[in-house]
């Protein structure tokens, strides 16, 4: 896209978002929407500020970030490792493929009962649930990325004395599968946020728990503050990750 075209696109997006917020505000002020069900957009910054001043905002964000990061790291590392191992080691692939097919369709949230039985209503339980969703995304993308590698590269490796397992892994499998693996990691970043909130709705401290408290008091403005917080955190993580991804895959562009 050319620079003027990109600017025009940004302008159109900004104007349409602003129009939507303005319509929302107007609809509430003239009484088209009931004010006990939806908060006024103009109230949101003030509510956010109050949450920040009370120290609640930082507390719940840090606590969510903590389960999120632990779950994300464990799920991603295990997902990539197991996915790659399955793609590279036919016996391991055969040994676990039925188990994988059995467990894969179970949504991460279905593990909540076990998470609570095993770990209690704790951070560990939240991290466990998050790691499950992240694991499967990374498992499948890594598996298919490694399987899709052109065999010709492995022949080159053998022809140049790099035919050992570790040399092939480091010099071919990892770099050649990197675009797919990084794509999976990025999808996992998003999936992680979805489960983080759901896991906290069961009382594990964090953004989700604060949203449940607020909804019990019909404080819709507080709920919206945290919805926007999640959107902003996700956008920040995704942006940072994209920068890293572009740097690692600069050979592709």
């Amino acid at each position, binding site marked *: 896209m050319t620079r003027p075209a990109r600017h025009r696109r940004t302008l159109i997006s900004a104007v349409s978002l602003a129009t939507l917020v303005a319509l929302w505000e107007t609809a509430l002020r003239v009484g088209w929407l009931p004010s006990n069900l939806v908060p006024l957009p103009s109230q949101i910054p003030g509510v956010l500020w109050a949450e920040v001043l009370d120290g609640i905002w930082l507390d719940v964000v840090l606590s969510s970030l903590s389960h999120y990061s632990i779950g994300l790291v464990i799920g991603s590392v295990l997902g990539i490792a197991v996915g790659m191992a399955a793609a590279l080691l036919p016996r391991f692939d055969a040994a676990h493929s039925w188990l994988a097919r059995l467990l894969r369709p179970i949504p991460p949230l279905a593990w909540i009962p076990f998470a609570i039985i095993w770990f209690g209503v704790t951070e560990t339980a939240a991290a466990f649930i998050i790691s499950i969703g992240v694991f499967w995304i990374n498992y499948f993308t890594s598996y298919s990325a490694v399987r899709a590698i052109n065999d010709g*590269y492995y*022949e080159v490796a053998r*022809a140049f*004395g790099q035919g050992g397992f570790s040399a092939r892994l480091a010099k*071919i499998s990892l770099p050649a599968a990197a675009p797919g693996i990084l794509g999976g990691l990025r999808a996992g970043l998003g999936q992680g946020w979805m489960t983080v909130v759901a896991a906290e709705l069961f009382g594990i401290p964090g953004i989700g728990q604060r949203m449940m408290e607020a909804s019990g008091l019909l404080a819709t403005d507080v709920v919206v503050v945290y919805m926007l917080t999640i959107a902003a955190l996700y956008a920040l993580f995704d942006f940072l990750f994209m920068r890293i991804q572009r740097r690692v895959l600069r050979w592709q562009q």
Partner: protein
Amino acid sequence: MAAMNDASAPVLTARGVRLGFADDIVLDDIDLEVAPREFVAMVGASGVGKSTLLRAFAGLLAPLRGDVHLSTAEASASRAWSMVFQAPRLFPWRRVRANVELGLEGLGLSRDERRARAMEPLSLVGLEELAERWPRTLSGGQQQRVGIARALAVRPRVLFMDEPFSALDALTRQRLQSELTELRQRSDAAIVFVTHDIEEAVLLADRVVVLAKPDKDAPATVRDIVTIDLPLARRREQSGFRDHVQRLEQHIGVAATPEETTS
């Protein structure tokens, strides 16, 4: 052991090699010796098993019967053999220089030594200025030159080339053919070169091995070995060139009437 250290001992010896599958033998009774610094081309119709045989010589495939002996690497930090493939098969995630360094990894060289060693063949193929580029930014001919540099970097005793120019346009192919003639004079490697292009074989090789099937259902074998006694830097127009080409064409069967070969 004495024979191996003899400078004139063959760098590659194949005896009674049979290749393929137990119920589908592709090549049989292959005998061949390649002398140090010799350039041997292998020609034959497509599907006759030229590339398969090349891989067996390199040890990438095990023969069903017979044996292949490849002399060991002589100089320190070198390899017994290396290969140039039909498609360049550069690693797109490595810069040009790092691609050339591939075979030098694990030979006990420091990073700086590896860099220096990679730059030598790159300048031989005239690409030292592109050393820090990504492969995708190179033309097909440049990529294949990098493939050749990668193979030369390990200072092999035998350089296997599997139809290295067949995917290139005619002009680039001609340029690389004459570059290869110059390169072999500066390298100590023997070259085993697979091609389906008879003129290319006569242009480049000291000897041309013709692989062909004695009859339709039999496995292919060495039908003839033709010594090309023309001085190097050959041209297609020079006297004697066409005679060699015609002789080889007859052996492969392309000069025979099409009815005979297809029926």
